[in-house]
């Protein structure tokens, strides 16, 4: 039990400025959980790591860290997420961050081609997560919850990714989706993706837009809009297509494509891709090859 004056305060950091791009969750592909970070490969085992840190004034021993995966979606809920496994870590006051390894192998499903969302939660006595926890993971509200919707996308030519847009539980809602291209990532985040010595593209060559229709975009397709309003009935889901056209980044360069979901000015979630060409420099040994959709 926590004392009246002292308490633990365990954090799994959110991303900055986009909370759904946490730097404290990463993946080690392959059968060696101690291997270098990298991108998950569909159908191949991978291990999920999380980093916890105690900002309080009481040690938190045996902090339970649960990790989850979900289909590429903006807002992840416990209902639709899949529990991978559990690990424990000691978060000591002044002890700095503590890496926590979940040893249950995660097998990214083939249909998502390795592009899946990850969530990590830390549970400990005195934490802010209610019991039972709410359906939405809601990382901005809880210090001990973080989400990583960031994967590497290898682009050869025009392609698309299907994203899931989930509605609100009890009311129809209109969501505003926006696409941003060209942000930069810090070295730690890039390293966590297994990307080494890559730099932001000098010239933006990748174009990104949103569509509701299905089918592969052609290089000469009219550019899809970067803003889209989508109505989703209560409790339902809709598919949204992120179309990527233009030309891949040059060797050693990347471009970030980020899609964000808003509802009445509130950010509900987002997904980002680090788009690289077919010959990115990587630190991981498990090279992945994204299937071209076009």
């Amino acid at each position, binding site marked *: 039990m926590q004392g009246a004056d002292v308490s633990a305060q365990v954090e799994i950091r959110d991303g900055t400025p986009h909370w759904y791009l946490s730097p404290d969750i990463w993946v080690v592909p392959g059968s060696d*959980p*101690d291997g270098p970070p990298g991108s998950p490969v569909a159908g191949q085992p991978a291990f999920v790591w999380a980093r916890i840190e105690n900002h309080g004034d009481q040690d938190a021993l045996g902090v339970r860290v649960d990790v989850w995966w979900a289909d590429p979606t903006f807002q992840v809920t416990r209902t639709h997420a899949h529990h*991978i496994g*559990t*690990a424990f870590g000691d978060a000591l006051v002044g002890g700095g961050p503590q890496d926590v*390894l979940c040893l*249950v*192998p995660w097998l990214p499903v083939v249909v998502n081609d390795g592009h899946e969302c990850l969530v990590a939660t830390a549970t400990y006595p005195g934490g802010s997560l209610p019991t039972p926890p709410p359906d939405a993971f809601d990382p901005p509200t809880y210090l001990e919850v973080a989400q990583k919707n960031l994967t590497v996308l290898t682009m050869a030519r025009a392609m698309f990714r299907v994203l899931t847009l989930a509605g609100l539980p009890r009311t129809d809602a209109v969501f505003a989706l926006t696409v941003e291209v060209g942000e930069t990532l810090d070295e730690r985040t890039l390293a966590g993706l297994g990307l080494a010595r890559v730099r932001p593209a000098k010239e933006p060559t990748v174009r990104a837009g949103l569509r509701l229709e299905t089918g592969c975009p052609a290089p000469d397709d009219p550019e899809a809009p970067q803003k889209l309003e989508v109505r989703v009935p209560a409790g339902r889901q809709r598919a949204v297509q992120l179309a990527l056209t233009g030309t891949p980044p040059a060797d050693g360069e990347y471009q970030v494509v980020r899609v964000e979901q808003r509802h009445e000015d509130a950010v509900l979630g987002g997904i980002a891709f680090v788009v690289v060409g077919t010959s990115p420099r990587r630190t991981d040994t498990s090279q992945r090859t994204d299937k071209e959709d076009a």
Partner: protein
Amino acid sequence: MAATPIDVPYRPFAIEPVTRIMLPDGIFDNALFHLRIAAHFTNTSGADLTNVTIYLESVGDPGIVPVARTHTFPTVLAGATVMVAWDADFEHATPGKRLVSFVARADGFDPRRIIQQIFVSQTRYDPVADQYTCEVEEGTLVVSSFRAIGPAQEWGPEGKCRTPDGPFVPTGFTSEWHPHPAYAGTHADLPFSDPWWKVLAVIIAIIAAIVAVVAAATGGGTASVGVAGTFEETDPSVTCCVPDPGGSSVSATVAGVASGIATGALIVAASDDADPWWRGQEATAPAPGVLTTGEKVEATWKLPVAPNAGVAYTADVEWTYTRTTTAGTATHSVSETQTNIHVAGPVTVEVPPTLGVFDDLWVRASVEQPDGTRFTGPDLYAFAALRAPGGLYFVIDLTDDGLGFDPKPDDGVYAGVLRLEEAYKILLRAGQDPRGRWDVFFFAQDVDQTRPGTKPEIAAQEIGGMFVASALTLTFDPTLPCPLQAHATVQVV
């Protein structure tokens, strides 16, 4: 900072918490829902480590649910090995090799993560077919007939009634190995790429023997165990112990130890160098392209004397191996005498002669190896059962880590302590007085010290979990006196 210089040199092993015995070769079996994950942690540096914490971080099977706990040691001496364990629920464990990670931290060092493997099997009993199965990833062993020498009438509470607690000394079995999948070539994959197939038969035997003990101690039902079954009993009977008139019941630990020692007969009969499966496979190598779909071993043995811990007893064995392939069957039969190689020399146990009711009852014990040197450090999993004057048992771990009442690490003296002040409360609740004579019974099992990466057929030759020291003596002679002999006694005044 450098990583904390602590290592886990050997595979973590399973301890059944009711009986406190290590399961054969340290293998976890999900027929026993509640098991302890135990491991030895060695300070690999030449300096003492201070403020050491060790916790279990994760297990690579969501069906294995450990209880979070951080073990703390003010000091771990240079080169010393400490043993720690975590409770875990294995009810929904999946058979196979699973990773387990630990994190150790000491002052002045960064945390160190240590990843090891544990082995998990799944034993079940089919009452309709009257057969046991033990499943691992590499195949399933089906034992359809387990013959055993059962306990004598004298074994049980008050020495009057027969209990299902055993011990049962195996004297034969009929088994079939179903490899997953059918294989070409001479040898099948070893279970977990490590122990001989016979170890699975021993797991079945020990589980069949102790489920009743565990169920009785935990209130029965299926809350703690997933199987129930029996042996086919043959003559003569095992005379194990006539409990003291004042004893309330036979300790679950003593019953578990008795079963552990008894089932060791199967290990001995089936040989550690190469078991009947391996030898049968070598003698019946199939032609190229032929697949082996099943292997049967029928074995019977006679024990001129009862099996006992650390003793080079013999077993006169006859076994027949039958290989079933896509091209027919082939058999290989052997008649031979095997000898227990898990032997030990004299056991020394030291205790304080007299204590007050709030003092520490410490125990120091050592076991010699056949060459006269002592087992040391992580060689053994050692524990002592302390019987209070009123008959209640307390079990304590003994370690050779140089901490507490152990004067020096790795010198072969295993020490532990029972704080009588704490035991006093338990005794009072049981209506017993701590004053009087306490009996101290010492037990030790050897530990599989195979290093990770060892070639499977080499690793298979090292089998842990055999008792090398025991206060309990099994005998087939009912005229002999009570064979549960205390190693030492303490007067509490």
